[in-house]
Each structure stands twice: as C-alpha cells, then as structure tokens.
C-alpha cells in the first residue's frame, strides 16, 4: 500500500525522523489555516501517488495568505497524469544547503535489506544511476544483524556525504532503517534528504510503501486504507474480500488462483482480446464467492463477455459447477459467460452446467483455456 507524502511524513515522525511543520488540507480555507500554524513562507504540495508533480505545477511556494489561496485553488482538483488532486500538504519552506538521497528496500535476489545512499539527491535516483552509478552506494544489511550507527557512518563516508553532514545523515539512516523494519515498509525513501544552512538534517519528502501482510500488527494503518484511491469496481471487490484489479478491456475475468488469473489475462490477450480485470476468487469457488465475483464484474459497464476459468483441485468440479449455476441465478447478468472447467471431476461439473437449463446465449462451456478465451473474445466484439 503506497502512502501519500503527508502520510509518509506522519509515519516518519513516529520514528523521530525530522520533517517540516505542516498539515494536510482539502480546501483553500484549510490550506490557509495550516499555513498560519506552519509559518510563512510555506510550500503548497499536491498529494498524488505519481512522480513529476513539480513539473506539472503541483508544488508552489507561497509567501503570504493571498499566494496560498491562489496556489491551493489552482492545485486542488488539478489532474496530474490522470491523478486528480484531492489534498494538498502545506509545510514551512525549508532553506536548503545540500540535497541527498536515502532509501531502504528488500532485495529479493539477495534476500537481504538494501540501503541506497547518494550525495546527489533531489533528482530522480534512476537518472543518477544511469548517469553516474558510482554516485550511489548500495549496502546489503542482514535482517538479523540490523544496521548499526557505525555501519551507517561508513556508508555515508563511502557515499561522499560531506563531513559537516556525516553524523546527522548516519543518525537519520538508523532512524529510517527502524521505520523500514519495525514499520513494516516495502519501501522507505527520502528524496531529498536535506542539509539546512543551520546544519540540521531533515526529510523534505517521504515515499513510503507498506506491506499489507503486516496489517495485523499495525491497527493504525486503517486510516491509510481509507484514503487509498480505488475505482468503484475495486471498492466493491474490497468489500467482498476479492482479489481484484480493474483494467481497461472488455472481457471480464474470474479465475481461481492468482497464477491462473494472470494466465487467463495472457491467453485472452493472445487471441486478440483484452481483459477488463484481474480477479482471483481463491481456492474455494463456492456459490457465495462466485456470486460476489459476478456482481463485481457486472458492475463494470465495459464488460461485454465474462470468462470463468476454474481448475478444480481439492474443490471438485461438481461443487464448482453448482456454485456457478447458483450464482448465475442470483445475479442479473448483462453479459454472456463462457466457462472453462477442468481438473478433478471436471466431466461431472460440465454435465451439471449443461443440465442446469441456462440458455446457451447466457452460459456456454469450453473444454480448454484457449478455446474458452477465443469464445469469450468473439462475444466481446
């Protein structure tokens, strides 16, 4: 789960990482009120989960109330690469002497934590990596050893962080590492990490992605989930506890298992169609789950046909078929269904589907994934 900058800064603050005084605002008046507490000059920053907001005019300096009003009015509601700005973060403008970069992630190949540190911050780190890879220090950290202040110090020296900022940055790295591990982040990134003319180190931005698997030990994450930007279909799917991702095509997809669902998208694409979604209903595939899945797909006006791809393992074919028949009776579908049912007791399952008395125009069965995909794509044309 990706956090907005303001949430990331609030998260950082819990781990004693210094961030600018500020607050979030959803209206111009709120922005003015926040600016007063943060003290002028302030920066008004669009809260969107996409890069390049500065270039798009989503970050503006304001010296007084009139300027805050003007910028907040312009930025709120602005469309930045398809993301509509619903909130701005207003913070006290910082004086910047130097800009650095620091992040922690999990390196899956090495199965260890990875620190990336650079004395060249404030620009896209990918650009730094492309231009001068030696400007980025990469350090693997064994998760059971953790990051000591001494190791952090050494990394700073290697990254050529200037002497005046060494202690401050090393201290910041340990704090950011604690946030990354104890805070269950997939990513904790500060860019830029700034040195102020007064000598203090400070996080001017915050990019935090949380591991939702750890939600059980972070009840405080509930508020982040509430601000996640989901489309109407994704919202409905979440309420029904389904693994759903909205896409732009016309063939609605239901499959059991994440791999099979992904594979179904691929096959639809391979035969010239496009999927309207990814939907994994998991292993069970009973009538309740199937009904919920069909309701979500049915709520998508772009869907012209529905492809159900089920492989019966422990859940036998006849149970799956009964679930589908029951669900089709419960939901008033706008699009025809093509089913591919395979695996344990698939023949019995197909017989139940054939004998259910559902008209061919509403529900047909195909024996293989490829044939089912072809039929569904044909119907979606």
């Amino acid at each position, binding site marked *: 789960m990706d956090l907005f900058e303001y949430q990331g800064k609030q998260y950082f603050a819990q781990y004693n990482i210094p961030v600018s005084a500020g607050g979030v605002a959803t209206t111009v008046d709120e922005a003015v009120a926040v600016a007063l507490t943060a003290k002028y000059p302030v920066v008004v920053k669009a809260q969107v989960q996409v890069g390049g907001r500065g270039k798009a005019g989503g970050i503006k300096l304001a010296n007084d109330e009139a300027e805050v009003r003007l910028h907040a009015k312009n930025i709120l509601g602005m469309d930045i690469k398809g993301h509509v700005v619903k909130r701005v973060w207003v913070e006290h403008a910082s004086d910047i002497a130097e800009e650095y970069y620091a992040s922690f992630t*999990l390196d*899956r*190949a090495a*199965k*260890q*934590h990875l620190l990336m540190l650079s004395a060249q911050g404030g620009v896209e780190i*990918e650009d730094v990596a492309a231009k001068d890879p030696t400007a980025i220090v990469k350090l693997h950290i*064994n*998760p*059971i050893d953790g990051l000591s202040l001494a190791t952090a110090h050494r990394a700073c020296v290697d990254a050529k962080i200037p002497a005046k900022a060494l202690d401050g940055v090393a201290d910041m790295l340990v704090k950011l590492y604690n946030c990354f*591990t104890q805070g*269950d982040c*997939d990513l904790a990134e500060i860019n830029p990490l700034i040195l102020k003319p007064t000598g203090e180190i400070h996080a001017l931005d915050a990019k935090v992605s949380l*591991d939702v*698997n*750890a939600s*059980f*030990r972070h009840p405080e994450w509930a508020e982040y989930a509430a601000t996640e930007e989901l489309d109407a279909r994704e919202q409905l799917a979440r309420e029904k506890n389904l*693994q759903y*991702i909205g*896409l732009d095509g016309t063939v609605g997809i239901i*499959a*059991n*298992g*994440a*791999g*099979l*669902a*992904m*594979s179904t*998208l*691929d*096959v*639809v*694409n*391979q035969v010239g169609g496009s*999927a309207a979604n*990814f939907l*994994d209903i998991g*292993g069970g595939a009973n009538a309740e789950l199937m009904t919920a899945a069909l309701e979500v797909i049915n709520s998508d006006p772009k869907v012209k046909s529905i492809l159900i791809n089920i*492989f*019966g*393992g*422990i859940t036998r074919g006849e149970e799956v078929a009964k679930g589908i028949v029951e669900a089709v009776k419960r939901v008033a579908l706008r699009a025809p269904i093509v089913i591919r049912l*395979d*695996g*344990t007791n698939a023949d019995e399952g197909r017989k139940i589907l054939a004998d259910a008395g559902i008209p061919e125009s509403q529900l047909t069965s195909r024996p*293989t*994934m*490829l044939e089912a995909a072809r039929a569904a794509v044909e119907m979606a044309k």
Partner: protein
Amino acid sequence: MAIFVDQNTKVIVQGLTGGQGRFHGLRNKAYGTQVVGGVTPGKAGQDVEGIPVFDSVADAVAATGANASFIAVPPKAAPAAILEAARAGIGFVVCITEGVPAQDEARVFATLQRDYPATRLLGPNCPGIISPGKCNIGITAGEIAQLPSASGPNVGIVSRSGTLTYQALYELKQQGIGVSTCVGIGGDPVPGTSFVDCLAQFQADPETHAIIMIGEIGGSAEEEAAEFITNHVTKPMSAYIAGVTAPAGKKMGHAGAIVSGGKGTAQGKMDALRAAGVQIGLNPTEAGILMAEIVRTIRS
C-alpha cells in the same frame, strides 16, 4: 528417486487441530504420506483421527522420528513455527501460510541460514510438494498427479503459482507423462526454496529426465534460474511465465508478483530462459505440449 521427499519421509503437521491443518493433513495421510504426528501447544495427548498430537515439535520428533513438517498456522504464528521446527532438527519444512509479512520472512530466512543450515524451508505461501505415489505434503490434490514410470522418462515440475502447478500436473497426466516430484515454491518475496535450489536437485535426480518450470512476473528468480540453467542444467526444459499482460505497479494477487521500475516483466524472463535453451510456451497448455514433444524425443 524423487527430490526432497519420498516414501521414507515422516511428516508432522504443526496446526493439525486447526481447520486447514486437519483438512490437508488428513488428505495427505489418505494419499499415503507417512503423517506421524501433529503439534498444537496445550493439546498433547489428544489425537486427530488416530494421529497423535504433541505440545511441541521437539516432543513430536522424539516420539515419532519425524524428519519433515507441514506448517498450517496463521501468519502471526508462522515465523515462530518455522523456527521451532528447525530447532527440533526437522530437515524439511513446508509452510503453506499465506500473508506472512515480508520482514518476518526475511528474518526467518536469515536465521535459518545462520543457525539451522541443515533445515530447508519450502514457502511460505506455497501449495507444497508431491512426489507422486510416495509423499504429498500440502494442498495439492494427489489424484491429478501422474505416477512416475519405472522406465521413464519422468518430468520434474517447479512452480511459483498454486493453480498453475495443478494445471501443469494435469497437462502431464493428460499426456500420460510421469512426474518425479512437483514443487510449488510459492509467490512470496522471500521464498525459503528457490527455482535454482529445485533445478539443482532435479538435475542430480536420476529419475527426473526433463523439467517444467512455471514462473510469474516480479523479482528476478526466473532470471537467476536462467543463469543457473545455462551453466548447470543439461536436462531438457520447457517453461511458462504468467503475467505478460500485467500492468506495471499492480500486485497480481501474490505479494511477490509485481512489475516495478520496468523490472520483473514476463518478457524479460522469457527472453532470459529462451537464451538458456528453455522452450517457452505462451500459455500453460503450450508448455505442456512442448514437454510432451520433449518426452517423445527422449523415448525414441
């Protein structure tokens, strides 16, 4: 022969008295797996349809001589359960638990590496492992796996995805091709056992003559496998990579299945495997058909 587990594997189920543990543990036993005990703290002395339950893995090992464990406990409890099994000297641990935090997985993996190098972990979040006719640990429906034939050729399967593992087993059964062992390594960011671990074992196993690999988007496990295949695998292989059409930045169901920063794409993985001499199917059925051709060539 088979890899990791066979008819001599003695399994205990951690969480045998829970819903999942009971259901799958009993199914594994019915398949013919030696399920010799269960572990649920505080329930020693009870039994689940004749399978004795112990308070700790150490007690279960002492009483039964178990050398493998099947962990079916909630995500909160899984890391401790894995380490308890390792401490008790279990050599092969299968953890099917879905939803273990990545930080916990990384710590568990590092701890096993440092303190219990003799313990191999499969999973978490994996369907398990089956050596058809010998041993089935996990949630695979044993009846969809074709028994290996004494004269061969037999195929080894290694997969990151659950249902696609079954799909691969099923494709081979349709073609009448025997399976030596089928390993589901799981779709999480830090799996205990990797493609490379399984490929090394299959390469060394005289009963395995060819290998099918099912990968998916995210991470670099398939690319690492491709490098290993180039240098160490001489047995013929076919593969399928799921997620060609997956959009960047969206987790496709599995915690590990995400294309980010242009890395981990299906195309990149297919290219790497193709360069390593692996035949690539564009869907699971195609990978099965390619394998059937490989097997026909070996037979003739």
